[in-house]
């Protein structure tokens, strides 16, 4: 069997599994799967910056957060807004925020980028915490109506049913991960990897480095906003500590790093692993976050490529052994 057919079969299998999943699970588990998909898509959007652009963002939650707030606010104040437009607004809010900050952010990289994103993220956090009239601070905005998914004259799907919401959310998240996958495969994605590895050389080749970084930032911000919007629809509650705090920014970093920054699917694997770890540890001990932190430190110290890196190293070793054994036979 060729790799292409194998890959196609694996994808098809995964797709069928995801389609059948809500039929097999209890309602609260369905929402756990959606939450996992949200984390995965968020971590992938962070990895676009970190793994592909080499830009470590400590404030990625600000894009996620404005997406969530845009959704919550528009649903609270504008009655009768269609569902897809609400989600689109979330993406637009993330993109606009990234656009607003990009003149400052696109010029820097490395530590300076990390620090500036941290500062902007905290700025937004404190701002939303203090402007209680709009954001209701720590209490958060909740209880807004979730509109049904409606194609006029064709069908209306009620989003209050968890299974229905599952299909809607998973489709949106799947499409955004697909869009990011496509993004990394375009020539533009290759230029990004070039900027990560050697920005000066890319500059000499005639590419505009800050503009490219700004475009990446806006795309990543838009996806994060979109994902934040799905978060707002899932939880029906958006609070500053949930979506804008510094821990909301660290979470996807931990997930992406545990999975492996060097690969596209690493962050998805990482969020799966962290979710699984949390499910197991929360049954036995109270200190779930401590274990996450220790796992993260262990990964940074001993496995810089994450789980994907460990797998790649093991496979390389295995292939080399096979190769050397083959050579040995020939010589004999």
């Amino acid at each position, binding site marked *: 069997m060729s790799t292409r057919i194998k890959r196609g079969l694996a994808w098809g299998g995964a797709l069928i599994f995801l389609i059948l999943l809500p039929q097999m699970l209890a309602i609260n588990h369905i929402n756990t799967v959606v939450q996992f998909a949200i984390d995965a898509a968020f971590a992938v959007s962070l990895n676009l910056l970190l793994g592909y652009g080499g830009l470590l963002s*400590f404030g990625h939650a600000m894009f996620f957060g404005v997406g969530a707030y845009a959704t919550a606010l528009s649903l609270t104040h504008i009655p009768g807004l269609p569902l897809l437009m609400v989600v689109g607004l979330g993406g637009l809010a993330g993109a606009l925020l990234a656009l607003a900050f990009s003149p400052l952010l696109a010029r820097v990289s490395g*530590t300076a980028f*990390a620090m500036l994103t941290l500062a902007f993220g905290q700025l937004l956090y404190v701002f939303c915490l203090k402007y209680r009239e709009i954001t209701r601070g720590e209490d958060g905005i909740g209880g807004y109506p979730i509109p049904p998914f409606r194609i006029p004259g064709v069908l209306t799907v009620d989003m209050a049913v968890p299974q229905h919401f599952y299909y809607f959310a998973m489709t949106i998240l799947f499409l955004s991960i697909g869009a990011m996958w496509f993004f990394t495969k375009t020539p533009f994605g290759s230029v990004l990897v070039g900027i990560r590895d050697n920005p000066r050389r890319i500059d000499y080749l005639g590419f505009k480095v800050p503009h490219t970084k700004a475009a990446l930032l806006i795309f990543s911000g838009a996806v994060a906003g979109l994902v934040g919007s799905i978060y707002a629809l899932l939880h029906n509650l958006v609070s500053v500590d949930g979506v804008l705090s510094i821990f909301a920014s660290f979470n996807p970093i931990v997930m992406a790093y545990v999975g492996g920054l060097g690969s596209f699917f690493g962050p998805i694997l990482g969020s799966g692993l962290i979710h699984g770890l949390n499910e197991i540890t929360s049954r036995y001990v109270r200190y779930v976050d401590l274990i*996450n932190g220790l796992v*993260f430190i262990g990964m940074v110290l001993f496995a810089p490529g994450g789980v994907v890196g460990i797998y790649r190293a093991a496979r390389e070793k295995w292939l080399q052994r096979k190769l050397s054994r083959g050579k040995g036979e020939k010589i004999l």
Partner: protein
Amino acid sequence: MSPTIVMYITQALHGLAYGMLLFLVSSGLTLIFGMMGILNLAHASFFMLSAYFSYSFLQVTGSFWLTLLLAPVAAGIFGVLVERFLLRKVHARGHIAELLLTVGIMLVILELVKIFWGTESQIIPIPPALNGLINLFGLEYPLYRLFIIALSVAILGFMALILFCTRLGKIVRAAVSDAEMLDALGVNTSLVFMLVFGIGTWLAGVAGVAVAPILTVFPGMADQMGMDAFVVVVVGGLGSLTGAFMVSLMLGELNAFGIQFIPKLAPVLMFAFMAIFLCFKPTGLLGERE
């Protein structure tokens, strides 16, 4: 004195006390930045950790003065261990790995503190000798805050003496400006890194103990100080002690008068300050690097 003038002087003194504490924290942060090229995100965690140490030491020993001596040293030793056994291992792999490691350390310290001391606020009483108000030319001012100002000035004077008048200070300043060159000259830079990291966390620890009776001790107590120290280091110019000193005092006053006149905007004020400042001078006040 008229009440308005009293208010101005009181707020100015409050600002001075906060600014001095801020400088205790940010001086270590800026020195560590100068050497390693990273902002240590776990720095404020040591500040919090030291406050918790002081709470426990105070319960065991019962003496505030002994606590003031011991708790920061314990935090400093913890800092040295973190540098020696964690940060040094990833130093060769570059800044992003180091930054991520400090994030991990920050998360772990926060969780450990919650496990050992719980999440509720612990109250540390102001020592009796420093309790009460003092009359300054007709102005009633809390004695403990004056003590904080005096303590900070004394420690900073001592540190400045070491830094600018001894051979060790010369080596540290050289490490901040160019660690590789210093290494090539035959100085054991690993040891210098460890020492400066330890002293930096010790300074943050002193601030943590000093602030504990005013702020009470809780897991989120380092949040504001941490962000403020970070703004100080960025605006003051990365690695510049003098810049950090000036900006610390500016921020302290900005904070004190901001709370007085525009309470709602006060927390946003310092970020606005930073953003405006960096637009005009991206390297910070006295910095040479981005």
